[in-house]
C-alpha cells in the first residue's frame, strides 16, 4: 500500500488544528464585545495607568509623604507651587509636605477601600442573596424583609455613628462600609437565583440527592458570576465615593494616612489662599478614576447583557 506520507501528515496537522478551535463561551463573546467598546477600553487603560501611578509613582518622588519642606513652610502660596526644580511635582500641602507623594498615598488608600469594600459586598451579598433565593418561602421573606428594613435606614448616618462610637480607623471604615454595602447585591443576586433555581440542571441535582449547600456552591453561584461581576465593578466607585464623603467630613481616614476625600477636603479648605493645586491634583485623580470605573462598569454590562444578542 502506498502511503502518502505528506497527505497523512497534512491531515494530522489539520486534525490537530481542528482540536484547537474552541467553542465560544459567554465570557469569550463578552471579551470581544468589551474590546470593541472604545470608551470602556480607554477607561480600562486609564485605570491601569492610575494603578501603575499608585504603585511605582513613588520611585520618582523626591520627597516622602511625611517629610516637611521647611524652606517653603510659612509661605506656601508663593513658594509651594508645583515645580520640577524643587521636586514638588504637584506642589506642597498646607504643612509643607510633598503633594505628589500624598496623592500617591491617597490613591492607594482610596482604591484599596473601593476594592475591599466591593469585595466584602460581593461575598456577603452573594451568599445571602443565593441562600434567600434558593430556599424561598418563609426564609426568603424574612431575610428580604431584613434587607428592606436596613435599606430604608440612611446608612451614611449610621456609618458615621459607628465610626464615632468604635473609633475612627481604616479598619472600622471597612467594617462599616462592608456592613451596608451588601444590601443591593443581596437583592440582585436573589432575583437571579430565583430564575436559576427553576433550571433543569438544578432540578436534576436535587433529584440525585445533592445537598443544598453543594447545589448553591456548584450550580447557583457559578451561574451568578456574570451579574455579580458587572455589579461589583459598579460598586467600586460607589465605595470610593462613600469613603471620600466620610473623609471629606474629617471622619474617615485619619492623619498621617490620607485619601482622595481627605485631600480634596484639605484643598477645598485652603483654596481661598491661592493654593489651587492642592485642590486640583487630588480632584483630577478622583474624577478620572471614577469616570473610568463607571465606563468600565457600563461596558461590562453591555458586554455581558444577553439582551443585546
Amino acid at each position, binding site marked *: 500500500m502506498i502511503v502518502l506520507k505528506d497527505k497523512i501528515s497534512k491531515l494530522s496537522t489539520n486534525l490537530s488544528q481542528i482540536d484547537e478551535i474552541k467553542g465560544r463561551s459567554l465570557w469569550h463573546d463578552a471579551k470581544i464585545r468589551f474590546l470593541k467598546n472604545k470608551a470602556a477600553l480607554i477607561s480600562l487603560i486609564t485605570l491601569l495607568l492610575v494603578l501603575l501611578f499608585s504603585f511605582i509613582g513613588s520611585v520618582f518622588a523626591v520627597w516622602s509623604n511625611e517629610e516637611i519642606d521647611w524652606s517653603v513652610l510659612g509661605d506656601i502660596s508663593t513658594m509651594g507651587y508645583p515645580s520640577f526644580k524643587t521636586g514638588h511635582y504637584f506642589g506642597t500641602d498646607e504643612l509643607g509636605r510633598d503633594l505628589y507623594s500624598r496623592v500617591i498615598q491617597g490613591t492607594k488608600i482610596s482604591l484599596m477601600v473601593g476594592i475591599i469594600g466591593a469585595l466584602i459586598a460581593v461575598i456577603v451579598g452573594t451568599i445571602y442573596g443565593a441562600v434567600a433565593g434558593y430556599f424561598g418561602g418563609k426564609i426568603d421573606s424574612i431575610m428580604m*424583609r431584613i434587607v*428592606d*428594613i436596613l435599606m*430604608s*435606614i*440612611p446608612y*451614611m*448616618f*449610621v456609618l*458615621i*455613628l*459607628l*465610626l*464615632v*462610637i*468604635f473609633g475612627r480607623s481604616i479598619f472600622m471604615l471597612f467594617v462599616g462600609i462592608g456592613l451596608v454595602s451588601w444590601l443591593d447585591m443581596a437583592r440582585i443576586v436573589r432575583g437571579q437565583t430565583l430564575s436559576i433555581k427553576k433550571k433543569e440542571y438544578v432540578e436534576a441535582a436535587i433529584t440525585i440527592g445533592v445537598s443544598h449547600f453543594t447545589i448553591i456552591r456548584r450550580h447557583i453561584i457559578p451561574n451568578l458570576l456574570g451579574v455579580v461581576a458587572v455589579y461589583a465593578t459598579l460598586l467600586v466607585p460607589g465605595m470610593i*465615593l462613600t469613603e*471620600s*464623603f466620610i473623609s*471629606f*467630613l*474629617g*471622619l474617615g481616614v485619619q492623619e498621617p494616612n490620607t485619601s482622595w*476625600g481627605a485631600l*480634596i*477636603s484639605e*484643598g*477645598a479648605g485652603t*483654596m*481661598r489662599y491661592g493654593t*489651587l493645586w492642592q*485642590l486640583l491634583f487630588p*480632584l483630577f485623580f*478622583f*474624577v478620572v478614576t*471614577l*469616570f473610568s470605573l*463607571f465606563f468600565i462598569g457600563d461596558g461590562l454590562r453591555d458586554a455581558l447583557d444577553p439582551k443585546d444578542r
Partner: protein
Amino acid sequence: MIKFTLKRLSIAIPTILILIIISFLLMYSAPGGPFTSERPLPEQVLKNINAKYGLDQPMYKQMFNYVKSIVTEFDFGPSFRYKDRSVNDIIAQGFPVTLKYGTWSFIIAVLFGVSLGIIAAIKQNTFLDYFAVGFSISAQVLPNFVMAPILVLIFTLYLGWLPGGGWEGGKIQFVIMPVIALSTSYLASIARLTRSSMLEVLNSNFIRTARSKGLPKYKIILSHALKPTLLPVISYLGPAFVGMITGSVVIDMFFSTGGIGLHFVNGALNRDYSTIMGITILVGCLTITFNLLVDILYAWIDPKIRYDS
C-alpha cells in the same frame, strides 16, 4: 389601596423602632460613658450626674425610657456636650435651614431633571440630546463634595458674585450655591432615567396608535407618554431623598449654613452621642416616611403594584 397602605405602614413602624433600638444599643456599647474625660470627676459627682441622666439604671430600663420619650413626646433627651441645650433645641435650630435648601434642591432636581430628560428623548440624536447625556454622565463623578468647592472657586473667588458661605436667615444669594451643589448629581440621574424611560415608552404600541390617530405631538407626550415615563423616576425619588439628606451634611460643613448636618458632624467630632443619635433617628424617620409616601404614590399611579401585593 387601603390594604396596600396598611401593609406598608406595618413595615414602616417596626423599622423606625428598630432604628431607634439599634442606635441606642450602639451608644450603650460605646467604650466609656459620656462623662468620662481625661480629668476624671470625683466619684460622687460622677454618680450624681449618672443618676440625674438615668444612666445608673439597668440597660433594658434605659432603653425603654429612651424609646418611650421619643415615641410619646418626641423628646430626644439632653445633649451630653452642651449643658444648657437639649437635642430638641439643636434640631429646632438646624432643621429649618436644612429643610429650606433641601426642599429647593429636591424641587429643582425633579423639575429640571424630568424636563431635561423629556426634551432629550423627544429631540433624540440632536445637539440638545448630546448635551443632556454628556451632562448626566459628567455629573455622576461630581458629587456634592466636589461640586461645592468648584462652585465656590468659580462664583466666589473668580467672579465674586455670590458669598462663599453663611446663611443670614436664608437670603437668596446664600441659598443658590448650596442648592446647586446638592441637586446637580440627582438632577443628572433623574434626567438620564427620564430620557431612557421616555425613549422606551415612545417606541411602544399605544404611542404608535395615538400617533396614527393623528393626535398632536404635545398631547401624545403629555397625556399618554408622561405617566408611564415617570414610574421609574418615582421609584428613584426615595434614594434621591436619602442622598440629598446625606449630602446636606457636606453642604452644612462647607457653606457653614448651620443646618442639622453641621450639628451632626460637630456631635460626631465631640462624641456628643445623644445629639448624633437624635439626628440619626430623625433623619431615619424622615426617610422612612418619605419612602412610604413614594410607595403609596407609586401604587396609586401603577395599579399593577397594588393588586400584586
